[in-house]
Structures are given as C-alpha cells and as structure tokens.
C-alpha cells in the first residue's frame, strides 16, 4: 500500500462566494442578506470561489394533498400529478413489526409478504401474471420494528381500475394457502443464510443489537424459530385483526383527480369491514449500557466495515432540526466532513457517511464506511476525530449556511419526485405533525444555530455510550480496535469467539 500523503491542509482560498447566503423563506426568490462570507476550504476540498453561484434560494410552493374519508374509516390522501400518466397507490396499514408478540417476531412482515401469494379469488400465479402483464408493480412488506405495513401498487392511470381490483383483493381477501406458506418458509430460511454473506448485513445486525438489546429495534432479520413455526392460521389471525379500513391510510399520487378517484376507491374498498384493532404498545428504547466494541470475524474480507453510533431521537423530537443539520454537516453526503476527510483527503474509502432516523421510538445516529483492512486504524482515528470535532468545535457560519442551503434548495428538485412528496404527507399523518409542517420546514431549518448543533452533538454523540461495530478480518483488526477499549469478537453466525482463537497476522 502506498504511503498516504497527509499534507497540511491548503488554506482557505478566500473569495466572495455565494455558497453562503442567508436563508429566509417566503416571498419569491429571496435575496441574500448580509455580506457574503468567505468561502472555506476544508479537508479534502479546495474552494476557489470563482464559480458563479446565484445567492438566492428559490422559494418553492409544495403541491397540496387532497383528503377524504370513507364511512368505514379509510383515510384517503391524493397528490395530483398530471405531468405523466401514471399513479402510485400505497395502502399504509397502521400495524407493523411492533405489533408482533415477543415470541413471534416477524409475523407482521410474513403477513405482508404472503398476502400476494393467494386470495379467495386469485392464485399466487394469477396475481403475478395479471400485475406483470399490465407492466404494473405490486409490492408489500413490513419491517421488524416498523409501526406500519405497506402495500404499494403502481401503474398507468388507464389501468387504475384493474390495479385497484387486484390491490383490494390482496389487502382484503388473502387466504394464505398452506402450500404457499410452506414454500415461503423454505425461501425465507435460505434467505437468512444468504444474507449473512453480506458484511453490511452483519454490521447492521450487531450494531442494532448493541443499541437495542431486547427491544424489537434490535432485529434486522426475523428469527428462524418464527419462520419455522409459521402457519396459515397465524397469518390469517394477524391479517384479520389489523388489516382494517379504520386502521389504514390510502395514499395516492398520480394523474387523477379526487373526483375521478373516489368512485374507484368506493368500489374497491367501500365495503371493507371495519373492526376494533388491538392497540400496539410501543416500548421505549432501552437505557444505554456502556460503550462496546464488537468485531465480527469474516474470513476472506479485504475491507473492514465500520459503524459507530449512538441512540438518537424519535421522529417528533424537538431536536429533529438541529440533528438534521448536524448530520448533514457530519456525514450527509459527499460534501460533508466524513466523505471529504476519509475519502477526498485520506483515500481510505469509496465513501463515508452518517445518517439518523427515528420513528415512534428513538432511532440511531450512525457513521459508517468500508475501508481496506490495513487502514482500519487510520479510519477509526478520523471517525473519532470528526465525532469529537462536532462536539468540541463550533460549526462556522459558512458551513452551517451551506448545509441549510443544501436542504432548503433541494425542495425545488423534490417537485420532480412526486412519490417523495407523497411520503412527506404520509409522515405528517403518521406522526401527527402540524398541517403546515412541510410548508414551514425551511423556516425551521433556517432557525437552527451553531450553538444548537454543538449542544445536539454533545448530547447525542455520547462517547461513553458509543457503540462500535467492525466486520472484517479479525486477525488484523483486533489489535487496532483494542486501542479504543475491550474488543468482543463474534463469528459471522453471531457466536462469540474466545480471545485465544484469533491469532494476529
């Protein structure tokens, strides 16, 4: 391996660049206020500041969703999109993996997968042929720690009626044929094995366990025991209890008006029977034990997959916008610190990122990368440097304004991504966010200060509870990680490996 040139950073080439514009929203293109500050180079990037950047941030008006409700309680949301003659319809069932009983984790996910494997009117093969021959798609699923299950159908608007007919059939009339259930179990058990060959899967599995312990958030794949004991009756029971119109939102985006749409929805879902749905209790994320370092030995690895992180926030947390910006600055893309440092400056990796997420229980805030084995040490050093830097140093006004521009500016592009706009509306409903949540989103982004970032970093980059997961060649990575604390080593099947069994190379 070649020696990496760790030069002192080029100093900022100052220039009056419009990377930086104060962001205000409301009104048409907003004029930048205050003097443009100096452009700033950082690790891995040299900002010459000669490119002609328009300092204004375009004001964007988001399309308004229309809403309706059927007498049986089904909520309908429509985002009209006349640009292309297509539609996407998503039935969001307000029960998911979190509804599973502790001794039957995975049942919500199995139910969602199996609804398209046969109904009282159609066989699995009929469904596949009818959907595929229209060039449509029909997908369904639920995550093991999700609050919802979703069934999504897409197609051309001229096929709306036929597609709704099949969609309603799988949502309302699945009969979980025993033969299909058995075939599903065989495939799912094989899949459990195959996914263990992915280093990213292994890292995610151990990281989630380290953060969540016995909480359902720990699960990234269903337990084999759940698959083995699964029967048609279990599926039918879960379906009957949870797939109810009063426990669902039908969200649609497409080239159709509400007036055209409602009779079709009435026809497909009007006589769907409502029923009392058992309440799901969502356990709080557990108190965090001390920092751990988990090394998964994957013989044959030529890279170490690293994940470092902590417990984050719920989706409705008041800290959301501060964390959004903190994450953007730390690792929210190729213009962020982790990428510019670990890749553009050091050449350790193809990419380094951070991300955070949270639902009705606290999510995680994770930094991750894949680095060649012999720079594992250097990568750990830079990760720790960047995590501490966000805690200890105040983010400059320029860097903060750039992050704000990145987020607010991207609203213009989102207008060409109608499905992500629809997801925004669904998010607002699921979390009971204010009706003007997305319209005022830019103002909330703009209101975050450098001090907010620092205090958020100090709170959530909690180094005493930092969980570190590494997947790679343990014989080479163990000593490196030992510098950061006691290292627990596991094999790729999740079994602990006694310390004496790993010989250093």
């Amino acid at each position, binding site marked *: 391996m070649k020696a990496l040139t760790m030069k002192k950073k080029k100093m900022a080439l100052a220039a009056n660049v419009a990377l930086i514009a104060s962001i205000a929203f409301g009104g048409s293109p907003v004029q930048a206020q205050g003097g443009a500050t100096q452009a700033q180079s950082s690790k891995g990037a040299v900002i010459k500041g000669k*490119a*002609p950047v328009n300092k204004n941030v375009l004001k964007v008006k988001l399309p308004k969703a229309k809403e309706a409700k059927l007498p049986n309680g089904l909520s309908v949301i429509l985002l009209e999109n006349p640009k292309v003659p297509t539609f996407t319809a998503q039935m969001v069932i307000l029960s998911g993996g979190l509804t599973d009983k502790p001794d039957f984790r995975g049942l919500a996910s199995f139910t969602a997968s199996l609804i398209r494997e046969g109904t009282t009117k159609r066989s699995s093969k009929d469904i596949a042929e009818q959907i595929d021959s229209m*060039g449509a798609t029909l997908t369904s699923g639920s995550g093991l720690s999700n609050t919802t299950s979703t069934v999504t159908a897409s*197609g051309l608007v001229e096929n709306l009626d036929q597609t709704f007919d099949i969609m309603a059939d799988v949502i309302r009339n699945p009969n979980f044929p025993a033969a299909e259930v058995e075939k599903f179990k065989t495939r799912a058990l094989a*899949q459990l094995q195959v996914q263990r060959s992915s280093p990213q899967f292994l890292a995610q599995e151990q990281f989630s366990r380290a953060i969540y312990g016995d909480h359902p958030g720990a699960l990234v794949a269903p337990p084999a025991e759940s698959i083995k004991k699964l029967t048609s009756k279990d599926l039918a029971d879960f379906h009957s209890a949870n797939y109810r119109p009063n426990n669902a939102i039908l969200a649609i985006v497409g080239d159709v008006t509400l007036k055209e749409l409602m009779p079709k929805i009435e026809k497909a879902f009007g006589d769907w029977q409502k029923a009392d749905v058992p309440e799901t209790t969502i356990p709080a994320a557990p108190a965090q034990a001390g920092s751990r370092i988990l090394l998964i*030995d994957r013989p044959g690895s030529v890279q170490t997959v690293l994940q470092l992180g902590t417990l984050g926030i719920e989706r409705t947390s008041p800290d959301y916008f501060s964390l959004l910006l903190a994450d953007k600055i730390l690792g929210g*893309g190729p213009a962020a610190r982790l990428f510019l440092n670990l890749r553009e400056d050091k050449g350790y990796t193809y990419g380094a990122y951070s991300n955070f997420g949270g639902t009705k229980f606290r999510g995680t805030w994770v930094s991750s990368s894949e680095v060649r084995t012999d720079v594992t040490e250097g990568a750990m050093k830079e990760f720790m440097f960047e995590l501490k830097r966000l805690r200890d140093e105040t983010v400059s006004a320029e860097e903060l304004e750039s992050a704000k521009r990145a987020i607010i500016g991207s609203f213009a592009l989102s207008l060409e991504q109608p499905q992500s706009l629809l997801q925004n509306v669904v998010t607002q409903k699921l979390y009971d966010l204010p009706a003007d949540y997305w319209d005022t989103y830019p103002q909330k982004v703009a209101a975050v200060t450098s001090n907010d970032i620092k205090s958020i970093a100090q709170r959530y980059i909690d180094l005493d509870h930092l969980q570190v997961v590494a997947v790679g060649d343990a014989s080479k990575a163990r000593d490196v990680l030992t510098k950061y604390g006691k290292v627990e080593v596991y094999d790729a099947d999740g079994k602990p490996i006694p310390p004496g069994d790993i010989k250093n190379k």
Partner: protein
Amino acid sequence: MRRVSKLFAPLFIFALTILSTQAQTARKVNVDYKETTLKNGLRVITVEDHSAPVIAISVNYNVGSRDERKGRTGFAHLFEHMMFQGSENIGKSEQMVLVLNNGGTMNGTTNEDRTVYFEALPSNQLDLLLFLEADRMRSLAITKENLDNQRNAVQEERRRGLDNQPYGKSGEIQQELIYDNFAYKHSVIGSMEDLNAASVEDVAEFFKTYYAPNNAVLALVGDFDTKEALAKIAKSFESIPRQPDPPKVDMTEPDQTKERRATVDDMLARAPRVDLAYKAVAGNTPDFYALQVLSATLQGGQSSRLYQKLVKEKEVATNIGGFMDEKRGLGALYVSATLRPGATTDDVENVIYEEIERLKKEPIADWELQKAKNNTRRGIINGLQSSLSRAITLSQYAVYYNDPGLLNTRLDKVSAVTKEDVQRVANKYLRDTNRTVVITMPKAKARPTASASGQ
C-alpha cells in the same frame, strides 16, 4: 456488463417507481427536443420544460472502458474521478460541494461504452451549471497527489463492490470469458495492478484525446429559455478547441464455437450460484428488442417462467434474475440463479435449458408479449418524470446510436416485435455453443472459528 462504476454511491435513491401500462388510451411519448452543434463540434440538445423550477445537464463523452488499452484496465473510470478533482477555476471537490450545497444532485458514471457527468439544480443556477461543466472540459487540473487519492478511492470502490462481496468476482470472470476482443473482455472497474500503473501522463493524454468538445454530447433539460440558454452554452463552450477525432475501437467479435465454462471458489458466498450468458447482438437492433421481450418472458418478475419453475414449482433456487444487456457492441443475455440448500447446479441448469428449448419450439403467450411491451412503456414513462433522467437518456442515445429521438421511437421498436421474432432469436442466439457458464461455489472457510491460524 452489469457493473457500472460511479463517482460515489448515492445515499438514497428516491423511490421513483412511476410505472406501468396496458395502453388502450395510452398517451404517446413525445419529448420535444432541439438539437444544434457548436463550431467546435460539441453537440447540444435542449428541452425547455417549465413544469418545475429545475434544470438538469448531462455531458456524455464518447469514451468508455472499451477504449482502454491493455495494461490500463479501469482507466476510463479512474479518469472520471479525476474530473471532480479540479480545473482552472474550480478546486478539488469544489464541483461536488457547490452542487450539493445549493440543493442539487450530481454524479458521474462510466460503463464500457460511454462516460457521463450530470447535475440537477434549482433553475436559478444555470450559470453555475454551465460554468462547472465548461471549466473541466476546457482545463482539467491534473496532479499526482489527486491521482493517488482517487486511485485509492477507486480501489476501495472495487473492494466494496467486488472483492469484499459474495459472488463479487464471478461477474468479472464471466466477462473475461465471454468476450475475445479486449474492448469488452475486462471489467469497467479494472484490475488493481492496472489501476496502480496509471500515471498523470496517462490522464493528460486521455483528457486531450477523448474529452474534446467534438467527442461529447451536452443535454440540458428544464426550466430555462432556450434562446438564452443556447447563447450561454455557446459562450461557455464554443471556445474550447476541437481535437482530432479519437481512434476508432475495433469491436469485431469472432463467433463462439463451443460452450465456455468456469468454476469460482468463493470464500464469501454461502450458497452456490449459476451465471449464464449467451453472446448475442448490439443494442437498438430488431434482434435486440426481440431478446428483450424474450428476457421478460423468461425471467422478468414473479410471473416469469424461470421464477415460477425454479423458485416456486421445483424449489431449487431461492432467487433468479437476468436481463438482455444493451451495448453498442455485442451484448449478451444474462441469466442468474442462486441455489437453495440441497439443490445441485445441474438441477438448476437443466431447468433453465428446458425453458430455453421451449422458447425455441413454442411461441410465447399473448400476455407474455403484452407484458414485455408494457414493461418497456413503463420504463420510458418512468424516465420522463425528472429533467435529469431525460437529459441523461437523450445524451446517451445520441452517443450510442446518433439518435436522441430514440427516446420517442423506442416503444414503437419494441411494439414491432412478434412472437415469431422471439422464437427466431431464441434459435439464433441461445445455442449451447454460444453459452458461457460460471458456477460459484462457497468455499469452506479457511479459518474455522476453533482454530484461527495465521496464513
């Protein structure tokens, strides 16, 4: 092959799955584009569209890994990375920083047949967009330090995508086996050894030869005034000097006369996998479209013959997949199946061959033909939603086939395919002697947990 190499892996891909069709009253696809060529040979395509305040640019260079010489595999893609390392007026990584921090999106990607750079930004950033692309076409800054840095990044890209993944090397081995002509006989990502050999002189020469305005197509789509934008494009790009045309690559591929076969021992895999390829035909030819229909019938979606047979009925595979590869030179029809525990590769191969024989002997069903055509229409419509995907497609069809209008006529070409065509191409191309088979077998772990030994 299947793998393309990019500047970086996008963090989130917006789930744009606007799809589908059965087109009784289907709207005809028509993207109204304008085309002009600057004095220096730069071809310019524009589409004015005020439906969203977005502008997107795609600059597509007529160079790919097929243009690489022996000893420099992976170079076209490594070079792509260098296009983000600065030019006369743009610093290292500044292009990424400026686009992303103004709410935009960007990337670059290389395959065998072309290298494309693209950005989308809010529509008030037209000057920025043009400046960024023109500056690097005019004056790429090339330093040893930046080359070494990106060589490292690309080698990690290779490790992440191939060397550290199960089945990662199988595709590369298959590609080397399928082709005889060097142009396609190596991976886009290239070998570690060749990446190490690349020099700044190579970068400078490649830039001069292939990154000339007369070897590129620029497509601009979105919310702008065409007249004003064309004036700005001319001002930004027209003074970049034309270069002699790059050397033409010999793409002739000798006929294959017998089956080719390899077995790969894979320490990272947990289940055996079968990868088949039938060397076939270039893209945008009648036979190519017929093979696309054939592929949809054989292996497209859960209704496909192989999914129903291998996964559902006989339960010998946990997953199947494949496609007809679109290339400027000879593409191949690929078929893959991951085995279920207990099944043998012979079981799986035999079922696939039986299904291929059926395609030769019997016409496909009406609904299967409809499925393929509807899938095509769905794909095309899908690509119309965003300015960026239109820009990329228009520039790509111009570079590949000298026909940006293929965006509007492609559906007609697929619609022209008949059941007889499908049977004909099955017999013509899906011959045993035209096949390349790679079997991946999980290799027992060299280091069992009980005795970890150094080696």
